[in-house]
């Protein structure tokens, strides 16, 4: 896939990792005590607080990894700092070159065709003479 599509894909990746992270946090976060007026929240041992903390670490690591990959893709952009005018100039040069080489090719092709026709004519004359056992003039 070309580099720009990869970059676009990576941006969408970052977005999906981000909203997956926040969604998981919202869904699975254990209750927390907001103020000393409220009683302690019931600690639910079946919730696996350690797994949750691990998951959080993994998800944030994935987010940072995605962002780093985006940076490395940006570094890989072959963006020769010529700008639009430099590119257009190069295209005009290449077109002129292409025309010149094309004319040369055309010339060679015509000469080669002419020679081919000559050889074919001579060959047919030779074979005719051979058939009729005439002495070549």
């Amino acid at each position: 896939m070309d580099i720009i599509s990869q970059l676009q894909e990576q941006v969408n990746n970052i977005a999906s990792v981000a909203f997956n992270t926040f969604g998981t946090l919202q869904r699975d976060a254990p209750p927390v005590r907001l103020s000393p007026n409220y009683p302690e929240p019931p600690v639910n041992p079946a919730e696996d607080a350690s797994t949750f903390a691990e998951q959080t670490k993994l998800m944030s690591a994935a987010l940072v990894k995605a962002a780093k990959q985006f940076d490395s893709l940006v570094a890989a952009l072959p963006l020769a700092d010529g700008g639009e005018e430099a590119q257009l100039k190069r295209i005009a040069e290449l077109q002129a070159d292409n025309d010149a080489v094309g004319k040369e090719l055309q010339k060679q092709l015509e000469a080669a065709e002419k020679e081919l026709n000559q050889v074919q004519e001579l060959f047919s004359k030779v074979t005719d003479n051979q058939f009729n056992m005439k002495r070549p003039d």
Partner: protein
Amino acid sequence: MATATYPPPPPYYKLYKDYTTNPSSAPEPPPPIDGTYVCFGGHYTTDDVLPSLEDQGVRQLYPKGPNLDFKKELRSLNRELQLHLLELADVLVERPSQYARRIEEISLIFKNLHHLLNSLRPHQARATLIHVLELQIQRRKEAVEDIKRRREEVQMQLKESLRILDGC
């Protein structure tokens, strides 16, 4: 189960009755359309250009002007994005009711990112064109060399055969 029949062909097929005998008696095909046109109820335009962010009502975060340093802007937008995601996490912990503003800013950054990437596409198209032209020039030069070589071989062989024939 009732099925509808196909629509009939357009009525101007009658104008092409004598096309085989006299091709110029039939009408010419319509000229190519310029500007905007309507196709199956939808409006399309022949001038396909990427609409700028202001046209879509989105604030542009990276500087305008000629000769934009795309790599630098992309990298700084990436950093901004990460910072805003962290801010969102903080807001959710401390002031959860203010999430909307942060989410708006994050989506603004994403829109800017995608617009910047889309504006790289014309550059890519020109680079592809340059590459294709270079390949074509190289192929043509090789063909010219090839033909020259073959012609010389033919000349040499003809001279050779002449020599042999004259010898005997």
